[in-house]
């Protein structure tokens, strides 16, 4: 987006207001993605912190190709993966600060309550990391399968497969069916 390019342009000039605007614009998406990937609210906030600080630090040399949101998400995913790898075998509990639900759709739409959001977060946590990553990046990060494929360095078909299997699995977890 042009707006992002202009924000980066200002940021390069040292404009702190631009920094604040970029942060405000993307923090919720990034935190949601991070929380879903890491299943730990504190770690997610740390990752968000690291991504932003290092993004700002390197702003002089930064050049934007494509979307800023995707760039930030990719940085975030890489960092989240590092953390995830380190504690591969640890059991991780869900953090106390539960998810809140956004985007109220008016009277006709059913609302996802807190309880359901919690169930959903728990179910997401049970998915294999790669499937979870695709689902989160596509649905919450708004990334296209092609972009995710580039990032995960696999084919689009693989990404779509991961997405479909992930959703099926999520559905059966939520419907209480046994998962093989």
């Amino acid at each position: 987006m042009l707006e992002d390019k202009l924000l980066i342009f200002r940021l390069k000039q040292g404009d702190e207001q631009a920094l604040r605007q970029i942060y405000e614009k993307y923090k919720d998406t990034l935190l949601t993605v991070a929380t879903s990937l890491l299943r730990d609210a504190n770690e997610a906030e740390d990752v968000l912190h690291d991504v932003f600080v290092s993004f700002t630090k390197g702003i002089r040399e930064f050049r934007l190709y494509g979307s800023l949101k995707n760039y930030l998400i990719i940085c975030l995913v890489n960092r989240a993966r590092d953390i995830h790898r380190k504690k591969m075998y640890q059991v991780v509990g869900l953090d106390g600060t539960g998810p809140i639900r956004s985007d109220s759709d008016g009277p006709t739409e059913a609302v996802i309550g807190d309880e359901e959001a919690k169930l959903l977060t728990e179910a997401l946590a049970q998915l294999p990391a790669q499937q979870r990553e695709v689902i989160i990046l596509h649905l919450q990060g708004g990334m296209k399968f092609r972009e995710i494929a580039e990032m995960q360095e696999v084919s689009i078909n693989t990404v779509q497969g991961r997405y479909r299997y992930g959703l099926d699995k999520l559905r059966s977890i939520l419907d209480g069916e046994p998962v093989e």
Partner: protein
Amino acid sequence: MKPGDNIEESVRKLRHTTSAETDERILSDAQAALRESAQSRRPTAIKSTIAALVAAAVIIIAVFIGVKVFTAPAPKQPQSLTQKQAPASEAAVEVAKESEQDLGVEPGAEPAEEKFEAELKEIKELFAAGDIDGLASMLFDKPLASWLAAAVYLAEIGDSQALEALEKLGSALGGDDPNNLFAIAAAELWSRIEQEKGKPVFAEDDKLKSEPAGLVRTIDEKSYIYGWLIDANGDPVRGEIKLGVSRAEADADGAFTIREPADYTKFGLVFGRAFDANGNLGRFFVWGRDNDANNLQIVVEPLARVSGVVVDSNNNTISDFRLKISVFETEDVVYQGSIGGEPWKTQVNADGSFDINSIPTGVRLQLAISKPGFKTLINLDGLVAGDNLDLGRIALEPMPGFSEETQWNCSVFGFIIDENNEPLPRAGISLTAGEEIIKGRADANGWYEFTGLPREVQLSIVPYFDGYGDNPFHYSCTDVNVRLDIQIFPQAYDWYNQTAPALVVRKWLNCESLTLDSFKGKSVLLCLGLDYQKEKALLRNLNTLQRDFEAVGDLALVGVHKYIDEGAADEDILRQFIDDENINFPLAIDESMDATEDMILPDSKVVDGQKISIKKRPLTEAGATHSIYEVRATPSFYLINPDGILITCVHRAQIEDLVADLLGL
């Protein structure tokens, strides 16, 4: 709904948000990093922070105005009414301080401005997340100043969700006190809605709504329509009303409040329908822009039924047809399509008979029966409530050029190429055969293919590419397999690398009369095809762009709105919009297309073997300048260099690259 039911939607809606402390921590660390990086090389001064400041000021002014309105009934502080001339930021700080003192809150150690802003931000986030309970608990132990901020903010949003939130917060926090802040704010909002009713309504813009309150800030302006749902005896009916995209429920007293639709047809009308809660009674109705918004009485009546048998031109029954009911008003279609699914039930049987149940009446209806190449329209004027109408045998009539013998076995394929005979990857192409519309897209090599087309029938083909616009032409297949390469040209291609044609406009709206010569020495981005009714978001974004252009210095933005008749109400609405949104790039209304009729070159279509070259030079109702510049897509952007030479037509999506180039990014 269980989360498993629509899992994608559920995952999409899952949101986590940061705490204020986290925001502070991250931002201050990032700012430190920014300063550190800035120290290594001094930045060049740039004044584009003005844009951000203006945006911030808009919010502050909004808050300020809100405070003024709300505190007016309290006799304590009439001085706030006279502060209109004070600079916005100062005024806001003062209001923040003032409200703290007036409400008996100790001035805290934190500076009032920062505290006010931080809390307002939290309030906005909670509201944006739809978390009204969270908002209530956040406010529970906060000083009254925060309550005030919340009430003002919600009242400024002014939509039904904010109204609900206000009322909920009023009962959660204010208890039984009918004069608590939120109750007062809700009452104020209601009265404002009343006042707003007579004024023009601007479309709600979802895209902008989701935008963070940084670059763009909009305040919804909406009106509501109040009415009653009753039956033929005048008794109230519980039920549901849909009007355009708005929806409302009528309560046990039959009363409803529905948001005024944003998009009227060009006749100033919108189609709506109402049903009782049991689906036994219903009615179609037409809402006009000028109707009385205080008293919309809808009488629901028994539903009607239509049946018949469809035959072909040889009187044999057929069953592969489609049925569609459209709504008419005067001689023109008001509405075609469905609102949240068809309300009626349609059944088609193998013997060619059909049956449409539960049709509401109340407007002129037309039934369309069709299959590829065939269409019969039946006027249902005679249909009255509770009717059971048997149409008997209906012959499906061929459309011009079609017959029962028409063979649907042709294929057309080829490349879509540009002015240099280079393929245009992923160019859009649509094809219409009778009523059948096929929308397609060329592949990455610019190759397209259509199969199953009717033979020897006039087809309408429309290739499209960004910066090239729509280029419709007619074609008829005479062979089973047809190779057809389609060459299209950029908009205003004949003017490329020449002095850009002069702007022929009726009037400039927000500046002295200008010509392109006024911009000599600057690059000009000329935006045509503007239509405030359809492109409010674009106009706002252009306004932001303009501020950044100013900062860059040698780039100017000029807009020409499509033609509006002298003295038409639309012009006043547009002017109001320009004032309200503070649109400050030069904007003109185009001159009538009659002014330039002679200057428009005729369309050209050259067939050379298997290649067809299309040059469309549309004389468009959008106006004279639009016609000269061959606007075939809206909006269209043209880049004119500092010497006044037309360089290129750029698509909206390409502007960012263009500007990035100019900015040296």
